[in-house]
């Protein structure tokens, strides 16, 4: 069964450093998403991406964040200058985009720790 994969599974970085989180969505999916879950808090939507542009973003997704689909398979989330409060589990998801059966399939997550 096809699945969303994410790398790395864990990342430790120093405050102020840039990090890139990588995701490989399911191959025939057209919509891609990033969510995050700060420890002990809810899973929060960050951004959705379709047709090589952002289709929707939350207030969390500020200029510090960017997303890219650099090739036909990868989908990345870049955090330019990490802050302590960026420590969280980051989930990638993808969906076909075919209404109304809109189901998002999630990857296993990348746990980011900013020191």
């Amino acid at each position, binding site marked *: 069964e096809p699945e969303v994969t994410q790398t790395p599974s864990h990342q430790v970085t120093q405050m102020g450093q840039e990090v890139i989180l990588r995701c490989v969505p399911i191959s025939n999916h057209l919509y891609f998403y990033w969510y995050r879950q700060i420890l002990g808090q809810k899973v929060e939507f960050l951004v959705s991406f379709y047709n090589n542009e952002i289709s*929707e973003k939350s207030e969390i997704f500020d200029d510090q964040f960017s997303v890219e689909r650099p090739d036909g398979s990868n989908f990345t989330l870049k955090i330019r200058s990490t802050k302590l409060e960026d420590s969280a589990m980051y989930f990638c998801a993808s969906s076909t985009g075919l209404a109304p059966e*809109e189901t*998002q399939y999630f990857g296993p997550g990348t746990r980011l720790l900013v020191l």
Partner: protein
Amino acid sequence: AQSVTQLDSQVPVFEEAPVELRCNYSSSVSVYLFWYVQYPNQGLQLLLKYLSGSTLVKGINGFEAEFNKSQTSFHLRKPSVHISDTAEYFCAVSSPVDTGRRALTFGSGTRLQVQP
């Protein structure tokens, strides 16, 4: 704006007992409803979803949920749980895709702990 409330942060239950995990939502528009499960050290897996039609939906692993529009609830049930059901369960809502909004809004999760 949408919001989801999961009333119980933890639910301990004995093996083979029934369980209900509660979820209430708030939205000014019609919604799609989902339950996801997260096993330890794994990602979010879809258990079941309600888009339209029958208010009772069946999912994987013997789970089912009932959409109650008047009570704005989507409670998850299983008649007999197994040790392997121990996990975190998340209720989520989204708007219909014709609104152009696809973001899922999650509840805070309920940790189901099945004891022998």
